[in-house]
């Protein structure tokens, strides 16, 4: 094959790649840019301008919206939200991790069934799932009445309209999002490593904490982000299960856009949520990179030391 034909072959390949990119990826990437990237950039732009008295934007540059976010009332909402979203994440992991672990121990046929059963409730309307808890936690509802009937409590207790109710609602909403990635990471785990560890006399608990848990940390992190971030932005659960007494960032953002008509301030709050997401993903990526290296190395060292 002469040099010139190779050249033209390479040229054709490049042309084909470019045509392929344009035809296949072009429309989609354009669409995402138009309907996601530009809107999000617009939120960024708005955050630097002033609100109009009747809503909308007054085009005068200001940093006041950022300053306002540091007023005690809003810091209080932010820290409340972080606590509630954080607690939700911890509960979801504490329930979700062992469940995911249990699923990996099932016979293969049942594993699929178990996973589908985890996902199914997730495909039902989110509002209705939240509504179910209004019914369950109500002072006249089944939980209270069975506790009274059983003589555990003498009168119905206030379960609904508390931060606890909000956390239960959020865990319920996002639990599947923890179980799936954790399941995937445990499943992918090299069983031989764990067996090696236990062959070497490590107790099951040791083996779990030294090998399994560190190696599944990337999956845990993904699950944690999938619960934490949407919990932070959720405004329906605090409203319906918190009785308006628990205010989270999501409520604040919703209110700025749909009630107070203060778009610039709402934009600042939204940017806070987005930056938190980016930071968390960066941490996740870092952990995942380290584990892929050190985790395996650690286990290998244990094995070779034997």
């Amino acid at each position: 094959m002469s040099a010139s034909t190779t050249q033209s072959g390479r040229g054709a390949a490049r042309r084909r790649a470019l045509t392929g990119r344009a035809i296949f990826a072009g429309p989609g990437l354009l669409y995402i840019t138009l309907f996601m990237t530009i809107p999000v950039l617009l939120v960024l732009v708005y955050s630097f301008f002033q609100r109009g008295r009747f809503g909308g934007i007054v085009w005068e540059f200001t940093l006041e919206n950022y300053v306002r976010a540091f007023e005690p009332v809003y810091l209080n909402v932010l820290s409340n939200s972080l606590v509630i979203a954080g607690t939700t994440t911890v509960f979801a992991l504490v329930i979700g991790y062992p469940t995911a672990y249990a699923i990996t121990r099932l016979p293969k046929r049942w594993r699929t069934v178990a996973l589908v059963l985890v996902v199914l409730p997730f495909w039902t309307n989110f509002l209705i799932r939240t509504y179910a808890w209004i019914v369950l936690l109500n002072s006249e509802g089944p939980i209270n009445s069975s506790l009274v009937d059983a003589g555990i409590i003498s009168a119905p207790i206030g379960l609904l309209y508390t931060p606890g109710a909000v956390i239960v609602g959020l865990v319920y909403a996002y639990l599947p999002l923890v179980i799936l990635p954790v399941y995937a990471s445990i499943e992918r785990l090299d069983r031989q490593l764990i067996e090696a560890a236990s062959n070497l006399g490590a107790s099951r608990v040791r083996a779990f904490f030294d090998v399994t848990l560190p190696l599944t940390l990337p999956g845990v992190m993904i699950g944690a982000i999938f619960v934490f971030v949407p919990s932070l932005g959720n405004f329906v659960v605090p409203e319906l299960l918190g009785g308006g007494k628990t205010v989270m960032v999501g409520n604040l953002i919703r209110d700025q856009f749909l009630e107070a008509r203060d778009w610039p301030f709402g934009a600042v709050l939204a940017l806070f949520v987005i930056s938190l997401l980016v930071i968390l993903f960066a941490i996740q990526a870092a952990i995942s990179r380290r584990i892929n290296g050190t985790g395996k190395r650690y286990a290998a060292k244990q094995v070779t030391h034997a």
Partner: protein
Amino acid sequence: MRRSLTPSSVKKTGAILATAVSAALVLSACGGGDSGAADLDPEADLTQQSLTVSNWAGYYPEDMAAKFQEAVGAPMTITNHATNEEIMAKLTAGGDSGIDVAFVSGQFAQALNEAGLIEQINAEFVPNLSNLYPEAQELAYDPGNKFSVPYAWGTTGICYRSDLIDEPTSWNAILEPSAENQGKVTALATERWLMLPAQKALGFSANTTDEAEMEQVKQKLIAAKPGLLAYDDTTFYSRLVSGEANAVVAWDGWCNYGTAENPDIKFVVPSEGSDLWADTMVILKTSKNKEAAHAYINYILDPANHAWVAENILYNVPNKAAMDQVGAALAESYPPMGVTPAQLLEGEGLVDLGEAGPLYTKIATEVTSS
């Protein structure tokens, strides 16, 4: 695509956005209120106009659209909003909301008018305006009903279970509940009515913009929060029915919904006084069906129709001719429907807060997130 993330192209996107943005600014600056009444065509064929109306959910007879079309000929769609704030956000978002007639409370109609978003009412096309009580033609937010027409009016008070507790006489029954009522009272959540009980209990105006007064209001409301079951402006009366709550802050008409299900549910206006609110109908500037919109308002003000509305929503309507027909009968089951306009006027009329709006918003956040 990687290139699109470089700083220079970000700058370029910024420049394009800024251009688009300033164009929008110029366009929006061309708006602004004018005082002339709507220029209408008396010969307009109403059957060719189709009307979209946004009202509160459950605040109109269910067959309203069908009845209206039958009577006037214009097809009508009714959509719902849950709060004033929700419909305001839609109306002020820019562009055509697709709504011809919106139902908003008086102080919001006032704000919409100042923003230049609503049409002046052409009284020639609404002859039934004369059916309104004289008092209802001089309400504080819009004397002379120039840009809004009242649909229902009333006051805010405490709705309670008379079989479970004594009649509350003060707003403090909600703000400082007795031991038996701890966690068994609710307050309204929308800003103006969230503030009202504390404003009145402290002896302030419901329209106060004084920061020192509002600071006291805030402290009182924060102190009241632990005693509340919830903030609630949509389901409070059913909480009384189910027994979740003993006493709730309520608009008079919605208390009647509770009374309808349980006659032991009663309404009282606390001794410190309360507000006079009016829910109004306004016509959007963007409406392309203004003749039909006027016809709709006139249709509502027809005595028989407004009486039919009152019987359905159990709120007082500011229509003398209509209340003369049904008021006495309704008051037998629902005492709040027996109040006279003079009694209603004892309440303080709510008006738009102007520049103090954000202060209320912020205090509302401080209270609910405390």
